[in-house]
């Protein structure tokens, strides 16, 4: 596994921050047009790839050199994904994988280079078309992020990007799971790429009343407050994550470090292009994921909610969870990683899968922070404000995307 987030750029620092309830949300570091309503988020625009790589002593020098060379002219997102992918690659022991041609790469994410594209559009119009970034024609593509990391790690199995809006991460995990079950690959890197935040999209989401922009601009770390009565919209952020999926037999045979078991996944559509969440669609996705994993709702003891801090979204998800789990829904921890890292959009499913795995492994559930006023509509144990011990062993992680795209994955604690 590997992550780059505003609360840590390694698995260890990410976990420490999650348990301590640290928020990665602040005012923008990058210059944002004053006319944009959005003022706060999880900003990784100052990510220093060379410095990050310099802090990883176990990376072979030729890989570090190749990474910096590949990323020399690249915008932000390929660098974040490469950093996360390198961590996962090493953590999974892939340098020793016998048949590199059987390792594929699926990347969750679309519209990821938005900031880069906007900058070059402005250069085209305000300066001169010939002065756009020379490699723009290649680097603007989502697939360039995928391909650059694939070249970095010499991955030549099945490789493509997966688009599912805010559910992209889970969708990519599902796609990789299917490829492995079908025998099309021996191992799969699943990376989650964020969208490079830029003012036009941010302004657009604010105009849809989806994004928090009213009450917390002067206290940004309080803005992402899933399930809380004062929630007013999601807080965008940039994070990248990467996991390596492999059939159990193969992983065991080569002595790989196994963090958890991916037991199943499912996705449904609401046949509705709006941002409105649908209770039935979410219930179906969760139930189908449990079916795919061949487990019962009664065995689930932890849920990592999608919970973006919107009024309607959090309420509908709470209802969906209650519908599937019944009484049990109130008695198990249901927390929201987004309360600390914000909503990293297309990367969310991968980063939150990692948060889920860490909690299964450590037997601790992280808090949902910023719980100041409970909402009577939300009848769940959201692990308010403080982490606690919980020997959890079967988890759901939900992601629900704009356009009625629902997904859920099932993860089990791995006891060696």
């Amino acid at each position, binding site marked *: 596994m590997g992550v780059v987030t505003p609360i840590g750029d390694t698995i260890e620092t990410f976990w420490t921050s999650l348990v301590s309830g640290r928020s990665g949300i602040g005012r923008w570091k990058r210059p944002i047009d004053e006319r944009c309503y959005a003022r706060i988020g999880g900003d990784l625009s100052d990510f220093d790839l060379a410095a990050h790589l310099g802090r990883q002593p176990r990376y072979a020098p030729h890989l570090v050199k190749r990474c910096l060379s590949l990323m*020399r002219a690249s915008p932000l997102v390929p660098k974040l994904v490469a950093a996360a992918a390198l961590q996962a690659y090493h953590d999974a022991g892939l340098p020793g994988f016998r048949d590199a041609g059987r390792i594929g790469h699926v990347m969750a994410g679309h519209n990821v280079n938005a900031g880069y594209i906007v900058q070059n559009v402005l250069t085209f119009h305000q300066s*001169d078309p*010939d*002065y756009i970034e*020379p490699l723009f024609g*290649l680097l603007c593509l989502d697939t360039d992020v995928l391909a650059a990391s694939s070249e970095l790690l010499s991955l030549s199995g099945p490789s493509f990007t997966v688009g599912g809006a805010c559910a992209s991460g889970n969708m990519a995990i599902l796609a990789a799971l299917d490829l492995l079950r079908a025998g099309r690959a021996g191992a799969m890197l699943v990376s989650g790429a964020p969208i490079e935040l830029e003012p036009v999209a941010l302004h657009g989401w604010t105009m849809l009343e989806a994004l928090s922009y009213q009450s917390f601009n002067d206290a940004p770390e309080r803005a992402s407050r899933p399930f809380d009565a004062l929630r007013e919209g999601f807080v965008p952020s940039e994070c990248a994550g990467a996991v390596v999926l492999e059939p159990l037999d193969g992983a065991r045979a080569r002595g790989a470090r196994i963090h958890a078991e991916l037991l199943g996944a499912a996705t449904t559509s609401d046949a509705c292009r709006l941002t409105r969440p649908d209770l039935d669609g979410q219930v179906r996705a969760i139930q189908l994921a449990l079916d795919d994993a061949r487990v019962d709702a009664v065995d689930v003891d932890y849920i990592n909610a999608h919970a973006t801090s919107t009024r309607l979204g959090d309420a509908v998800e709470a209802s969906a969870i209650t519908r599937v789990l019944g009484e049990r829904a109130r008695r198990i921890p249901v927390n929201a990683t987004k309360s600390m890292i914000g909503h990293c959009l297309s990367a969310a499913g991968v980063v939150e899968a990692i948060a889920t795995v860490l909690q299964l492994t450590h037997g601790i559930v992280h808090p949902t922070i910023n719980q100041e006023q409970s909402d009577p509509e939300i009848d769940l144990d959201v692990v308010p404000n403080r982490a606690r011990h919980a020997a959890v062993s079967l988890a759901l992680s939900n992601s629900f995307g704009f356009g009625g795209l629902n997904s859920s994955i099932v993860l089990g604690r791995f006891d060696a």
Partner: protein
Amino acid sequence: MTRSQMFEAVKANIERIVEEAAGREITESTSMVDLGADSLQIVEVVSRSIKELRLKVPRTELASAQTVKDLLDLFERSAQQPAAR
């Protein structure tokens, strides 16, 4: 702007972008292809040089430039045209 200044801009971009050129001497007779540059590296060296020198160069004429000398000849001809914004 002098030819020498244009040469320095191109040379700096070659050294920065074409890793295969490390340690090799760059002169007007240098061909980037012979240095081992790939097509993207050549596009980058040429485009960044044009941008830094605030030139307007017809793209169709770039294709025929084989050496640094050919490029500089083209840049000098273009410098006599009105500069871009």
